[in-house]
Structure formats: structure tokens, C-alpha cells
């Protein structure tokens, strides 16, 4: 579509102004990472031109809550993914390839899990984990995440599977491969784009989650980076500058992931979404 040039210019200017207002909190969070605490209070919006410092980040990196939190978050995120990705891929393969009443019911059952607020199942989950002696352990949090995000994986994978030809399955079957073998050797490698989306989005959610680690890991037993920030800022009231340093360190991994894999973020988050 073509519109007169002057409309195009106004449109760009307008878009830039709106975006700048929207980005103000991000700007604020970023510039104050590199300013001393008193400068943050006095001139929160100023650029760190003459008082640029990396002391906030260095100080934040020294905090044991942050070190411990980053390590725990990494373990939990990777653990949850290792469990959740293959399980949801296989479940999706099953429900989308076998046309039985059971499979359809199972799909409905998974979709239903997509809209479940975590608070609804959290209390019984803690009781079950306590019985299994997994409360206050990494495993407890990992199992909880893997189960809770399973429906999302099933949803994305089964959406993708609709575009994978069934002839491949049949060819494999004729060659005498078992369905498990067909899945791992033929189907799963083909689903790489869907797998990337599921990994990226689930990694983001598990890394950023606050409620589950707060309860299941328990602050006295271990912290993830999110509960670590909460304790560092909320309870121990650290230096104002370090606050921004801590948030910077916590966000750096997801921001890096996002900038490099933006494509997968968008397709994962909107995965089933754009298909309607």
C-alpha cells in the first residue's frame, strides 16, 4: 500500500515517540546498572557519562544469593527441559497419530492443563512431593515444571505434526521399524523447528518462574535466581545500585537467548496461536 510521503514520516515519528515512552522503564533499568547508588537517587534518568561504574554488577556477582541462584536456575531449567521435551514430543506423537477415542480424550485432557493456574494445584503438589521425599529438592522443582509445562509442549508439537506427512510413518513401518524407533529416527529429527520453539519458550518460563521455586524449593533450602532477587532486595535490602546489578545479571541470559533466537520465541509463543 502506498500512502503520501508526509503521512509516512509522521507515522514513523509517532511510532518512535510511542516506543520511547514504552521503553522508558527498560532504559531506566539499564542506565542505572552502571551508576553509583547516590547518582541513581539523584538523577535516575541521566546517562552514566562521567560516573560510569561496573561496581554494581561486580558487587551483585559477589552475592552468594546470586551465585547460588544462577547455578540453581540453570540446573532446574536444563533438568526440566531434558524431561519435558522428549515426553511431550512422544505424547504429541501419540495423540496426533492414533485416531482413537482415547487419543482424542487425552488431547483434550492436555489442552485443559494449558489453562490451569499454578496456584490451583500447588498445595496438593507439595503434599505429593512431601510423600515422595522430594519436597525442598531440585528434583521436586524439576518434576513440577516438567509436568506443568507438558501440555504446552504437546500443544506445539502436535500442531507441527499435522504438517508432517504420515507416509513417512508408513514407510518406516513397512521397513519393520517399531513405532518408538520411527518416532526417534524419523519424526523427532523432523520436528527440529518445533523442538527449538518449545525449548526456548519453556526455558524462559522455568528460568523466570517465581512461585514454584519459592514454595517447592523453599527459601531456607535453596534459591533460584528469581527467589534470590526477591530475598536479596526484599529481605536483606542491599545497596540500591546493587539491586540493578542483580536484576541485570538475572536478565542477561534470557535477553541473550532472546536476541539470538528471537525467531523461535515468536513462533513458539504464537505457535498454535496464529493457526487459530
Amino acid at each position, binding site marked *: 500500500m502506498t500512502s503520501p510521503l508526509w503521512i509516512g514520516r509522521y507515522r514513523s515519528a509517532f511510532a518512535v515517540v510511542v516506543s520511547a515512552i514504552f521503553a522508558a522503564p527498560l532504559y531506566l533499568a539499564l542506565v542505572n546498572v552502571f551508576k553509583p547508588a547516590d547518582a541513581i537517587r539523584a538523577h535516575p534518568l541521566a546517562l552514566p557519562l562521567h560516573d560510569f561504574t561496573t561496581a554494581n554488577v561486580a558487587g551483585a556477582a559477589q552475592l552468594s544469593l546470586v551465585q547460588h541462584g544462577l547455578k540453581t536456575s540453570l540446573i532446574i531449567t536444563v533438568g526440566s527441559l531434558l524431561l519435558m521435551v522428549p515426553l511431550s514430543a512422544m505424547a504429541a506423537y501419540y495423540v496426533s497419530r492414533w485416531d482413537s477415542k482415547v487419543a482424542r480424550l487425552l488431547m483434550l485432557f492436555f489442552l485443559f492443563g494449558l489453562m490451569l493456574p499454578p496456584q490451583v494445584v500447588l498445595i496438593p503438589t507439595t503434599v505429593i512431593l512431601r510423600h515422595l521425599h522430594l519436597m525442598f529438592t531440585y528434583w521436586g522443582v524439576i518434576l513440577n515444571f516438567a509436568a506443568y509445562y507438558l501440555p504446552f509442549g504437546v500443544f506445539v508439537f502436535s500442531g507441527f505434526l499435522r504438517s508432517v506427512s504420515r507416509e513417512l510413518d508408513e514407510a518406516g513401518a513397512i521397513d519393520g521399524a517399531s513405532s518408538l524407533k520411527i518416532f526417534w529416527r524419523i519424526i523427532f529429527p523432523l520436528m527440529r523447528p518445533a523442538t527449538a520453539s518449545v525449548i526456548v519458550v519453556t526455558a524462559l518460563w522455568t528460568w523466570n518462574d517465581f512461585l514454584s521455586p519459592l514454595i517447592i524449593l523453599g527459601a531456607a533450602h535453596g534459591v533460584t535466581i528469581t527467589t534470590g532477587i526477591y530475598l536479596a532486595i526484599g529481605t536483606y535490602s542491599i545497596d540500591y545500585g546493587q*539491586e540493578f546489578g542483580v536484576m541485570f545479571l538475572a536478565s542477561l541470559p534470557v535477553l541473550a537467548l532472546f536476541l539470538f533466537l528471537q525467531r523461535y520465541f515468536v513462533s513458539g509463543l504464537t505457535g498454535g496461536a496464529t493457526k487459530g
Partner: protein
Amino acid sequence: MLYVALVFLPLVLALSYSLTNKNLLSPQTAYVGFGNYRELLSDTVFKQAVKVTAIMTALIVVLPNALGLGIALMLRSETRLFAVLRTIFFVPIVLAGVVVSFIWQAMLTDSGVINSVLGTAGLGALQQGWLDTPNHAIGSIVAVATWQYVGFCAVVYLAALKAIPDELLEAAQVDGCVGFARFRRIIWPLVAPAVTINTVLLLITGFKLFDYVKIITNGGPGGATNNMALNIYSVGFTQNAFGLASAQAVVLFAIVAGLSTVAVLLLRRREVEV
């Protein structure tokens, strides 16, 4: 199996706990029938939480949805500048709720950035306690949620807009269908599936909102932002009243499941009619 053990079983257990007086601190658990539910009917804190949740969710369903569509329409050109601007709108989505909460807390407190900027700009009259009165606090929480989720809505709308064939818009232009008429008659019906997705996702987001209310206001002032999600957490894990908290969880679940089903059915019907 894992899903059954840690998602479905808990849901069933939540139902059964809600009929007991289970409390982590007392060893005896007895069946109390619908006692917990009866108690909720006269529980002013719970009723307040339901009201707060309803108000916040209603605003959160509408605001990011409407603004997201506006932003999508604004940023849909394929130039480099607009690609950068789109990325900016998407950044808040990848940040942790905890981080977003603390950034906004630094802005919203009495001596926070918003008030100091207003002061410097000579707009001291507009300075206020953004978290001090019930209305301001609810408004602030909704603003934070809108800021974080508007980019997501915009991305979903952008994908829907991209799917509209250029020929269709050009044909409309030839027929004199421009401006608002073009939006009303062509764009709006064709983004209907995106409206459904955003509405349902925002609905669920609104009901489970926890990080902001826990960190920015901790339910205050005076319970003004104590939503159902936070209340279940306090009753369940601070007072350890698992039975009562489970009854609240069941009510929350019933509302979320009911409303999302209704929303999907209503909005889907609109999609079919087009």
C-alpha cells in the same frame, strides 16, 4: 504419567482437600463436607480477593489487547526502523515477573522515579502515592501487567495482519473502503482468531497474577490488591490451612475454566461467521 501424577492428581486432591480441615500444623484431618465453602461465603477477605481479581482481570483482558492491536497496526511496515521498534515491545515479555516488579517498584514508590520526574518537569501537582490508595494501587498493578504483556498481544496481531493478502486491501481501497471503514470491515474480522487467543491468554494471566502483587504491593494497601492467587498463597502457605486454601483454589479453577470456555465459544463463533 508425570502429567497425571503432578497436574491431574493434584487437581483431584485439591477437590478432596477442600472438603477437609486439613492443616499442616495439626496432625488430625477431618472431613468437613462443604464447611470450607460455607466459610468462604462469609469470609470478607476472600470476597474482597474475588472482587479485586475480577477488576484486575477485566482491565488486563481489555487494555493489552486493545493497545496491542494499536501497536500492531502502527508497527506493521517492513522497514528496518519498525523491526527494531517491534523488538523493543517484545523485550518485557522475556523479563522475569520479579525483575519487572522491582523495576516498576523503583518507579512507583513515593520517592520513586515517576514522582521525581514529575517534580523536575514542574508538574509537582501530579505527584502522588501511586501505591497508596486502593484505586492507584490497582491501577499501578494493571499498568505493569499491560506493559509486560502488550508486546505479546502485538506480536500475535502482527502475525494475523501479515496473513491478510495485500490484494484484498488494495481491492478495498479501489472500492473506496479506507480509514476506519477498512479497519471495521476488513481488518477487524480477519484478526478475529488473534483476538480469541489474546483474550483467553490474558484471561488466564489475569487470574494467576502473582509476582507483581506479592512484590510491589504485597496485597496492600489494606487488601486492595490481594487477589485470589495471592490469597491462596497466604492462606495455604503462611497460615498452613490447606483445606480452606484448597476450597479457594477450586473456586478459582471453576471460574477460570468456566470463563475461558465461554470466551472461546463466543469468540470462535465470531470467527466462523466471518
